[in-house]
């Protein structure tokens, strides 16, 4: 069996400008932030970002690497709105595809199942159809004749998800309460990247939790990287909670270009190991 272990920069090295990239997690919860930071370091831009949006979206927007965001919401949970994403939207710098959360789910599912669309009531009558003129409806071929939204497959060039644990072969384990939609992001993507707090030897995942927690299997994974703190500053239970002080500093960095520059210099223009050192040194008082 192949050993799929690589470094995070190897994963990001496969990305090209203009790609469509999906990120697992939800809001400011278990986001593959180390991957996001690696993308920022590499400066890969013109991206279409597909996400149940949190600071992954905001950070990439602030770094100027986003052409378009596909989203149903963007939130930091304990801070309702991400100021970096807001600034990008309000300045008209980025394109947007805004859909219902359930439509988003079906778009990933359609891509994972290799069908062009899946039907749903979600979106009917709403302005989601007005602002996305490419969205189409479909009439049921059965007797009911209902006209439903045909949510198109959200096909991804690459997807990143962050697990609590993974093994050398790319099986991935969620030890927290919610796996979110991570498996679907992997299913929808051409290249599938799993980062984990810890990568263990094959067979050892069951020392960590029951078989039902190993929701990502190796058919869904191309490469795996061990990145402790890989979800920081978002939450990654039971390994760690959200770093609220850091998140506040991140949000405040949207205040003006100088504040952002200082934040980026300290936390983004450095390797992941330096990032961890800067984080453990504490957020500077503002």
């Amino acid at each position: 069996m192949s050993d799929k272990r690589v470094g995070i920069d190897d994963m990001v090295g496969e990305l090209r400008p203009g790609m469509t990239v999906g990120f697992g997690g939800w809001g400011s919860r278990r986001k593959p932030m180390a991957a996001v930071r690696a993308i920022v370091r590499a400066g890969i831009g013109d991206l279409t970002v597909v996400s149940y949006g949190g600071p992954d979206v905001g950070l990439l927007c602030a770094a100027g690497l986003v052409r378009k965001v596909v989203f149903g919401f963007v939130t930091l949970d304990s801070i309702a709105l991400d100021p970096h994403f807001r600034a990008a939207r309000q300045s008209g710098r980025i394109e947007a595809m805004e859909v219902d959360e359930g439509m988003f789910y079906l778009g990933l599912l359609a891509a994972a199942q290799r069908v062009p669309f899946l039907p749903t009531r979600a979106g009917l009558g709403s302005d989601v159809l007005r602002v996305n003129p490419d969205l189409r409806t479909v009439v049921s071929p059965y007797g009911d004749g209902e006209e439903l939204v045909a949510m198109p497959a959200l096909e991804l060039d690459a997807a990143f998800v962050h697990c609590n644990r993974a093994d050398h072969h790319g099986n991935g384990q969620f030890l927290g309460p919610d796996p979110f939609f991570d498996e679907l992001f992997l299913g929808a993507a051409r290249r599938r990247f799993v980062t984990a707090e810890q990568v263990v030897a094959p067979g050892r995942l069951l020392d960590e939790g029951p078989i039902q927690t190993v929701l990502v299997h190796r058919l869904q994974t191309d490469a795996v990287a061990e990145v402790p703190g890989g979800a920081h500053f978002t939450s990654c239970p039971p390994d760690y909670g959200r770093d609220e002080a850091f998140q506040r500093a991140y949000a405040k960095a949207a205040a003006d270009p100088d504040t952002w520059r200082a934040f980026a210099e300290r936390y983004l223009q450095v390797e992941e190991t330096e990032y961890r050192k800067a984080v453990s040194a504490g957020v500077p008082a503002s």
Partner: protein
Amino acid sequence: MSEVTRAEVCAVACAEAFRGDGEILASPFGTIPSIGARLARLTFEPDLVLTDGEAALMANTPAVTADHGDLVREAWLPYRRVFDVVWSGRRHVMMMASQLDRFGNQNISCIGDWRMPKAQLIGVRGSPGNTANHTTSYWIPGHTPRAIVGAVDMVSGIGYDRAASAPAAARFHEVRRVITNLAVLDFDTPDHALRLRSVHPGVSVDEVVAATGCELVVPPDVPVSREPTADELELIREVLDPTGARQGELPE
């Protein structure tokens, strides 16, 4: 017991919105709706299903400020499976609204032109799917002409006119109740236009009309929203919100 507060009247009005729902998932957003849903479960709707706010259904009915350690979980409901419930229709969501119009269209997406909004808000979230699939109510703690408007900037949750334009959306559509800091509103009119159902104690009909930015149907006799019973008041004050979080959401 001290005088009943507006927040307590609102909590009871939120509870009343769930009356008759039986065994469905009640999904309240906000502190006062959460108190309301729990109050309904502890009194007249014992079969209501509630989440722990994370990824589980909650068997007990503790205070809205209870630590996670005080919650008793009865089943797993991660986000992905919430959609199974939404699409099955066995849910009544009580959402907030940055804007709400005369036919119950809700906006939580953005203010201004969607292409380059004046203010980006959270996004449409699950509002389009919720409103097309199951009962929806709204909680608007700041009833002003900027919140209840002639037309919303981005229809997220669909109202009656939009539902009527798409039969497959109308099939399971119901916007039942709008609870605000001033009044209870509904759509029980022939064309499902917004109607004043009751005013909270101490609020005049004129005040509500002045605070509403769209046409409002005002019946000849507008009742006063009911006050909590002694039992309900005790549940709110001693069990569900002993620290007074409700006053933080709706100061007197």
